[in-house]
């Protein structure tokens, strides 16, 4: 054995810098630039807004934190938000998990449904879907209610209203669940696809029943995806605007998102201070959930794509199979076909009437929608912006996820935190911040596509990062290390190994980003100008104008267009990895 010769000396600063520069790969530089870009795009508008709110004449002024409690009814707004989320989120997570498991692991799998399920509600934007459900189940005039009352009167029960009432707590929670479920489903099902079925088979062989295996093996093994799904659902729940703005208003259940919208648009001058303080409250909740996800992902005790890939048989559900299939189909119907029918029913009428009279039906609304240049332009713009913004957001998200997977230092924490902040900001706040930062000189981007796409990327960056994180968490470290050892640099490793392996996760993340961006409502309402109208901007204008039937016609068209684009991207998402 050799003898210890010398004590290692510390390298000089010069050495450190040259060595650091030598190690700098093009990919490293790119990742660095992206990071700086995120900081600028997210940090700059927010900081300038915070500065405007909390610094009066250069002195710190925290009075907005006190003022906010003087807002009328603020207590009940917070309580309503809490009630809706506390009831709707666990239900949504459970439904998403069970559906994903049924589709990926059991003989209740319905080929087309398992692919389409998470996407159908995304293809019908939530404002359109909500309007469709209002058309079906508003107390007196809802189409479904009319039919049911007719049916009940046959057996001697006469009702003047109901039996359903969408303008209620039940209606709110029902719609929240419907539109929150798919956002969790995607990450859970792709994690189940990647989970080695032999883990579950081992449990079955060791004497666990189907349920016991589900709860003791499957659920713990996909915990990172579940926590990720919960995070996305929480963010979507907080940001949900279409339901509070329609059903919430009529049911007099005001939640945070709506209050912030009102503070910024209905009051003059806009009460940015209170809106920002309310946003900070959301930030705290989402930050706690985000910290939890980070903690779960770090422990690495979960099933990942290793070098060995197993093949599994489907769990036999026996007679429960038909019940499970019915539940899934019923969900699909309630999120898409039913509201779509409601929309179609509304859209062929001149004004809203629950009387069924075919002679009065016509396509005037469609003709009006199609012939209006503004609406044409907004459809076009939304699809384009959605594709561009979705791609950029997912690429950024993937780079951030890679960075987070390999780094745990302070810098990683800062990048992660910054990429998460926008999730906690209602889109109106992002929009206000963007207007403050970029609309005027020196950027002069007011009403341009750049400011819209920029704002979309910021708004949905957290979702892109979360989707990418759970996709990355599935790629075993040895896959990356094997590539580095084979002489591939970080750039090649990213393109040839990481990207193909995260491809399904990447595409499912992109589809979410595309649809939410193209259908974005509230931020668009403020940011879109007359030159660059987008769908959200146009639809909210129609709702506020009371042109419900015209809105229904546009919703039908939008749903069809979104479906085509979503299905097209889906074809790209078919996993390259061959299954045995």
């Amino acid at each position, binding site marked *: *054995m*050799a003898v*210890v*010769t*010398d004590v*290692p*000396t*510390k*390298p*000089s600063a010069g*050495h*450190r810098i*040259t*060595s650091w520069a030598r*190690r700098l*790969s093009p990919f490293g530089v790119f990742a660095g630039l992206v990071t700086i870009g995120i900081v600028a795009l997210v940090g700059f508008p927010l900081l300038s807004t915070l500065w405007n709110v909390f610094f009066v004449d250069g002195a710190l002024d925290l009075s907005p934190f006190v003022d906010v409690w003087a807002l009328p009814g603020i207590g009940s707004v917070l309580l309503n938000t809490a009630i809706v989320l506390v009831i709707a989120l666990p239900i949504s997570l459970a439904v998403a998990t069970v559906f994903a498991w049924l589709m990926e692991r059991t003989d209740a799998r319905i080929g087309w449904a398992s692919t389409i399920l998470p996407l159908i509600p995304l293809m019908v934007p939530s404002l359109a879907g909500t309007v469709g459900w209002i058309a079906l189940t508003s107390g007196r005039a809802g189409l479904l209610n009319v039919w049911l009352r007719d049916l009940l009167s046959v057996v001697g029960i006469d009702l003047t209203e109901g039996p359903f009432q969408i303008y209620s707590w039940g209606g709110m929670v029902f719609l929240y669940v419907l539109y929150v479920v798919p956002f969790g489903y995607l990450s859970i099902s792709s994690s189940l696809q990647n989970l080695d079925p032999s883990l579950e088979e081992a449990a079955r062989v060791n004497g666990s029943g189907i349920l016991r295996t589900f709860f003791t093996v499957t659920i713990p093994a996909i915990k990172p995806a579940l926590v990720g799904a919960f995070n996305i659902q929480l963010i979507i729940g907080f940001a949900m605007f279409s339901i509070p703005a329609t059903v919430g208003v009529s049911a007099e259940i005001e939640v945070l998102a709506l209050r912030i919208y009102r503070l910024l648009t209905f009051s003059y001058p806009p009460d940015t201070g209170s809106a920002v303080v309310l946003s900070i409250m959301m930030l705290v909740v989402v930050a706690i959930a985000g910290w939890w996800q980070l903690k779960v992902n770090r422990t690495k005790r979960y099933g990942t*794509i*290793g*070098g*060995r*890939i*197993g*093949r599994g048989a489907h769990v036999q559900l026996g007679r429960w199979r038909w019940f499970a299939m019915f539940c899934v189909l019923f969900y699909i119907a309630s999120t898409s076909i039913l509201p779509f029918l409601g929309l179609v029913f509304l859209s062929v009428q001149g004004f809203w009437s629950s009387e069924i009279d075919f002679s009065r039906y016509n396509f005037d609304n469609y003709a009006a929608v199609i012939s209006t240049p503004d609406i044409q332009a907004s459809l076009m713009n939304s699809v384009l912006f959605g594709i561009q913004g979705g791609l950029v957001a997912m690429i950024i998200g993937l780079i951030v996820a890679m960075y987070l997977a390999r780094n745990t230092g302070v810098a990683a924490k800062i990048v992660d935190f910054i990429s998460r902040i926008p999730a906690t900001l209602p889109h109106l706040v992002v929009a206000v911040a963007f207007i403050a930062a970029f609309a005027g000189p020196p950027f002069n981007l007011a009403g341009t596509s750049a400011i819209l796409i920029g704002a979309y990327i910021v708004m949905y960056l957290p979702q892109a990062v979360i989707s990418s994180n759970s996709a990355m968490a599935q790629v*075993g470290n*040895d*896959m990356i*290390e*094997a*590539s*580095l*050892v*084979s*002489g*591939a*640099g*970080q750039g*090649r490793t990213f393109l*040839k*190994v990481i990207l*193909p*392996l995260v491809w399904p996760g990447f595409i499912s993340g992109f589809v979410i980003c595309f649809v939410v961006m193209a259908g974005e409502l509230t931020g668009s309402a403020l940011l879109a100008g007359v030159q660059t109208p987008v769908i959200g901007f146009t639809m909210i204008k129609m709702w506020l104008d009371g042109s419900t039937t015209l809105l229904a016609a546009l919703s039908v068209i939008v749903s069809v267009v979104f479906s085509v684009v979503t299905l097209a991207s889906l074809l790209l998402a078919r996993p*390259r*990895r*061959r*299954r*045995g």
Partner: protein
Amino acid sequence: MSTVGAPRGADQKTATVVAGDSLAPVLQIDNLYKHFQLPGEKKVTAVDGIDLTLSRGEFLVLLGPSGCGKTTLLRCVAGLDSPDSGRIRIGGRDAYDSSRAINQPPEKRHISMIFQTYALWPHMTAAQNIAYPLISRGVSRKQVKERVDRVLEQVDVTSQAKRYPNQMSGGQQQRVALARALVSESDLILFDEPLSNIDAKVREQLREEMLEMQRTLGFTALYVTHDQSEAMHLAHRIAVLDSGKVAQLDTGRMIYTRPANRYVARFIGRTNETTGAVTSVSDGAADVTTPFGTGRATFTNEEVPVGADAVVAWRPENAQVVPADSAAPERAALVVDGTVTARVFVGMHVELLVHANDETLLAIAPPDSGIREGDQVRLVVGEGALIAVPQPETR
């Protein structure tokens, strides 16, 4: 990187490359340290001042139980973990040098590595997996195909070329992983417990093939395992690691017959051991007063001074089992009297558990031995077969 242009001829296949120290070392590790700070735990020193040199064509095995730092050391050589200080030279070039702040990324080190999990990329076929290291090092398309075909044949997986990893058995996957490591003809191939996921039969077969391939192709190998028989089989030299330090670095034979300390003696093979006071020292051996009587033990490493306690140990196969009433042999290192408490027939021989002086010893007798449970027996440890090592420091 030693790029061997011409295909290897049949005559070369039988040539044996012996580890030589005349050539420049392929891997040189000097005074390497690596610490870990696990949350909520004390700082762990995974690699504690290790020095190692591998000559061209040498097969060196890092052997130790889990947590001894062997995998960390391997990952530091690969560049997948960063050491805290020290120096690593691969193929005569600095891969890591803390004093000059050099730390090359893995892709610049011209090495290959085989992972415990195989780490075959599931989205690529076997041939694509194997071609990857060549493509990333800029080898021409024509040459890539040639070399991939050749290596597929070498590891006998030509039939799997178009298959995806999930369509192959574990043994086939490991062969492909081996092919991927061989194809670039790197100076140094790192093995991270490559056989631990394969069933026994295939494991033995692969082990023999790997041995043959290494001796034929002459690549330099640094191989991590916790399996001593694997180490004995494959290695030119074995480095037994203990808590981040090299406990002994020698040939398998020397490590087995002359373990440098109690840790190595216990880890490699089976031993009977006891302690005793040294009463006299001469010619690299000592008279030791053990609970079984006085023995003559050979020092394998440091000598223990007269008056101090030493650990004495012998391999079961080095002790002859005779009836208790037989005459005391003249030339024996140690004689132990005891009672047989268990007798197990294992095929090649009979194993006996012998109770002597409140301790249970293992003894080996010929398969036709008439010794039964309950018999009084005498164990005669052959001359020179009893070794003495210092008492380990209490940590």
